[in-house]
């Protein structure tokens, strides 16, 4: 990969910090973990955020420091022995080296049940397709979206935060271009109308906090059916 291919649009640092803190729920974690697989810049930033967690862990004042039980050290060593008996160094499954790297990086591939060719796309609205990945009632959702090149996504607003990461193809939105690895962030202040660029399909991982708000009577009419 050359510099040219590296992502140019990144998730906000506040999300990288929450990911490092272990405070993001499943759908957001999936997007961040997938993004950092293809973005060395953000992977490095997550590393810095983890170092920040370590610094906060270390900087507990003596007065606030918890006290361990007397035989804690011996118990920990006994536990370590148990652990190594339970699963002694499971050898890593060697990665299957194919001619080309998969389109879906891990951990996304596990959620999708395979790479891009093995997906079972479902129709979404009149021209798009999707694969729901994380869909729990009341929690943020994650899905793969496939939008044919040239398609205009109906203009919509957001009741919460929406992050969209491009996996293949590209889209433009308000003058900015988003290609593989790029993440677009849209929140309650944003109303937008992304357009998949002509050429191939645009495949994205989309995570939303809350249902989108489509504008216009037709879009509003289809919303209950398309369910984003």
């Amino acid at each position: 990969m050359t510099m040219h291919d590296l992502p140019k649009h990144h998730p906000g640092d506040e999300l990288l910090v929450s990911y490092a803190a272990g405070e993001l729920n499943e759908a957001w974690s999936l997007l961040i973990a997938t993004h950092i697989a293809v973005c060395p810049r953000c992977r490095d930033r997550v590393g810095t955020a983890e170092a920040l967690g370590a610094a906060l862990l270390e900087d507990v004042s003596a007065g606030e420091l918890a006290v361990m039980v007397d035989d804690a050290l011996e118990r920990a060593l006994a536990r370590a022995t148990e652990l190594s008996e339970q699963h002694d160094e499971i050898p890593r499954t060697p990665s299957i080296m194919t001619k080309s790297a998969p389109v879906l990086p891990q951990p996304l591939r596990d959620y999708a049940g395979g790479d891009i060719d093995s997906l079972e796309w479902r129709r979404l609205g009149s021209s798009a397709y999707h694969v729901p990945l994380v869909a729990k009632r009341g929690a943020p959702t994650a899905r793969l979206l496939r939008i044919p090149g040239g398609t205009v996504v109906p203009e919509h607003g957001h009741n919460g935060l929406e992050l969209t990461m491009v996996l293949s193809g590209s889209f433009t939105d308000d003058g900015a271009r988003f290609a593989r690895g790029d993440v677009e962030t849209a929140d309650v202040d944003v109303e937008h109308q992304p357009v998949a660029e002509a050429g191939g399909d645009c495949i994205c991982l989309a995570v939303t906090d809350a249902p989108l708000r489509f504008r216009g009577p037709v879009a509003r009419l289809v919303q209950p059916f398309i369910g984003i």
Partner: protein
Amino acid sequence: MHAQALYVDDVELVPPVRLMPRRGAGIRVSRPPAGSASGKVKNGMQMKGPDWGEVLSAVAAHDKASFATLFRHFAPRVKSYMLRLGSDDSQAEELAQETMAMVWRKAGQYDPARAAASTWIFTIARNLRIDAFRRANRPELDPEDPALVPDAPPQGDAVVERKQNAERVRAALAALPDEQRQVLHMSFFDDKTHSEIAAALDLPLGTVKSRIRLAFGRVKASIDELGE
């Protein structure tokens, strides 16, 4: 990433650049950890506690005395972390022991080129906490994934850099304005979403996010200064 466990023996001496106040940020040395020599200033040089990376490599060779040193420092801190995040005393004690058991068992896998020892221990504690509460899956990066875009080759001595990073991060954290350190602290220790932090501080959500970004940006900048 492929660096051998290179341990330099001169890291007792903090580079003088650290002692020079930066523009707009009075350097304050963070509070010394209990029971270590850290924080004592002698001849203008800060004397540090043990080099945790070296202690960890002795632990990897099953040196119990080194493990005891590591345990005395980190176990109470990990327990404090668990207590802050809502564990009761016995659960926090268990999780701290479990963390240290994992440290003993996995010390051989620690790669000093990737992270400082304290950061590595923090990530073990964090992951055990997430597992223990099972509130949500936390999808994680797979460093062996063929779709992973690799880091640029490290420049210079990555091992020294990581160790100094840990020092830098602590100094940068101590130099932050209180309101910025507070949101970082809450991000890691209060088990709250950004919205919940905003509600607790009676601030708009946007302010909380921008404060976290600003605070993180300063910490990141203090590390990047070193690399150049």
